[in-house]
């Protein structure tokens, strides 16, 4: 009987201590999440809460988040409380995180990656949602005849660089190409879309393509080997898993003497020869600027089209040397 009493008292004490956890560590103005309801009655709202839901810890996604935070803090200094939460690679956690944001009544949700976007879109039709690091919104949100503007409460930025230009790049660097291997991760929603588009463009030019999909870090090497055996040139889209495994891919492609054209600078500097590169940090900055406009009421999210950042053609000088390739005119070398 005494044990049960002690147990009940202890758990009650633990519950009480939760009430003390009112201050969140990342609240600069100290007013926390209640500010939204309070300042609404004043008419002139100056404090905003923004929730960031990032799907997984990853270099490109982290850069986009950082760009977003920097841009937002620059546009609205000291006025924004940002909650940055990471789902650690599990789509189910996105639902829990977004549920928390919606119940707090945040003023804007930034969804970094497709899994986060679909969870946010499903959770709320009122709170503005800005997506980033998403390649094709029409595919991600299942919109037929996507016009470039999602509408409703969703907009954002896309990391898609012109796919027809990327296909042309393959021929520009390697005019003798007959067979192109398309290397990507099957678990990446955006990669398949890019692969299909590039394959179409290449098919128009009479080039044979074949898909080589790996599931995760464990079979990257063997699938890349199969791709290297088949192809004259390998194409890698903006694929997060490929970006995490550039060393493994390079270790196969370089000895095989097969060059790779990549969709993104990070991948190119690891294992590729050339790319039409975008900077994920700049992508985040563009998203942050859009967010500032939406928060201050300057722009209406339902009319904002998806924005892109400019892409620069770049090449990897070290890889060119290793594979004995002369760089094409008009490309800038990747630094570092």
């Amino acid at each position: 009987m005494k044990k049960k009493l002690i147990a009940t008292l202890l758990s009650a004490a633990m519950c009480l201590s939760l009430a003390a956890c009112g201050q969140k560590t990342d609240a600069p103005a100290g007013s926390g999440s209640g500010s939204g309801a309070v300042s609404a009655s004043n008419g002139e709202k100056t404090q905003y809460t923004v929730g960031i839901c990032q799907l997984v810890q990853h270099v490109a996604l982290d850069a986009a988040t950082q760009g977003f935070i920097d841009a937002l803090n620059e546009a609205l200094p000291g006025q924004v409380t940002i909650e940055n939460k990471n789902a650690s690679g599990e789509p189910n956690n996105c639902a829990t995180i977004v549920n928390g944001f919606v119940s707090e009544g945040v003023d804007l949700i930034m969804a970094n990656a497709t899994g986060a976007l679909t969870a946010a879109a499903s959770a709320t039709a009122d709170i503005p949602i800005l997506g980033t690091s998403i390649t094709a919104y029409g595919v991600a949100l299942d919109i037929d005849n996507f016009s470039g503007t999602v509408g409703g409460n969703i907009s954002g930025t896309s990391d898609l660089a012109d796919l027809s230009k990327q296909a042309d790049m393959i021929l520009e660097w390697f005019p003798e190409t007959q067979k192109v291997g398309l290397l990507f991760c099957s678990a990446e929603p955006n990669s398949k879309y890019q692969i299909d588009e590039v394959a179409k463009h290449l098919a128009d030019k009479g080039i044979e393509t074949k898909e080589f999909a790996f599931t995760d870090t464990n079979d990257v090497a063997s699938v890349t080997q199969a791709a290297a055996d088949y192809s004259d040139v390998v194409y890698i889209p903006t694929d997060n898993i490929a970006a995490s495994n550039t060393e493994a891919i390079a270790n196969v492609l370089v000895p095989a003497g097969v060059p790779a054209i990549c969709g993104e600078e990070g991948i190119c500097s690891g294992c590729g020869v050339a790319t039409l590169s975008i900077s994920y940090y700049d992508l985040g900055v563009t998203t942050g600027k859009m967010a500032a406009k939406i928060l201050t009421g300057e722009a209406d999210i339902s009319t904002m089209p998806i924005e892109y950042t400019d892409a620069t053609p770049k090449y990897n000088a070290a890889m060119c040397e290793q594979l004995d390739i002369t760089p094409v005119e008009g490309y800038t070398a990747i630094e570092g």
Partner: protein
Amino acid sequence: MSFLTSLMNALPGAVAQGLVWGIMAIGVYITYRILDVADLTVDGSLATGGAACVMLIRAGVNPWLAVLAAMAAGMLAGLVTGLFHTRCGIPAILAGILTQLSLYSINLRIMDSKANQAVSVDKYDLLLSQRYVRTMSLDNPLPLLLVVTVVVIGILYWFFGTEKGSSIRATGANPHMARAQGIDTNANIVLGLMLSNGLVALSGALLSQYQGSSDINMGRGAIVIGLAAVIIGEVIFGKIFRNFALTLLAVAIGAVIYYIVLQIVLQLGLNTNDLKLVTALIVAVFLAIPYWKGKMFRQKIQPQSAKGGNGNA
């Protein structure tokens, strides 16, 4: 106080997620406790249920039928594991892993080679969606989930009272004795696995509608959540709920508690990079509690001379 208000606001969502995973946890309970088989297929069959349901809804099928079809797909997955185990002699854990591995490719094929298929509540007539979890309307998923949970528990309670159900329980309790009584233990193991994975796929189908998409990785870590729910339910309600139906209810409540704790952890503002560590610690604590309680009881029986009495009443 703003923490508590936002937590209260977040509770319906956490409870709804917990109930969906509760159905999955009941499926895990069947294999883990009743059949005494460690079934790792659930990571794959959860995604299979979600994938099948979403693709059917996108094709215009009635969502109820889509959910039933998803259950059938899950039962097929359970059948495969069962056949691997009973007909090929592969140990149960490995059979589960093999099926889970192959389900990755199968799920991709079901989803038309896409890793993520969205099913928006604005476009399709879904059974439930997290959009309405805070509203007081018929669209709110909570009543539906409660009804589904109760119906599932009711059907299972009836089934495990029938002769076939009892023979499955006997197979799990003492396979040698069951065989001696003339029970076909192999068939029962397969049946149990089919039933369990069917429930897991049902949960996956509901989850994909709730979250608005089915993802190839949505099953990752499912077995951990399922087992955590089973353990939490047992630890908290083990002494109170002796009835089988109530034990299943305890498992569902365990899943709800797990998700409430997860939501609290997220609201506390902890770095979400540490989320998995915190989850593991929570499950470890729940697993350790019965063991520590047992040790505390054991000290009572020691003779007076060994210790100067003990600190417990």
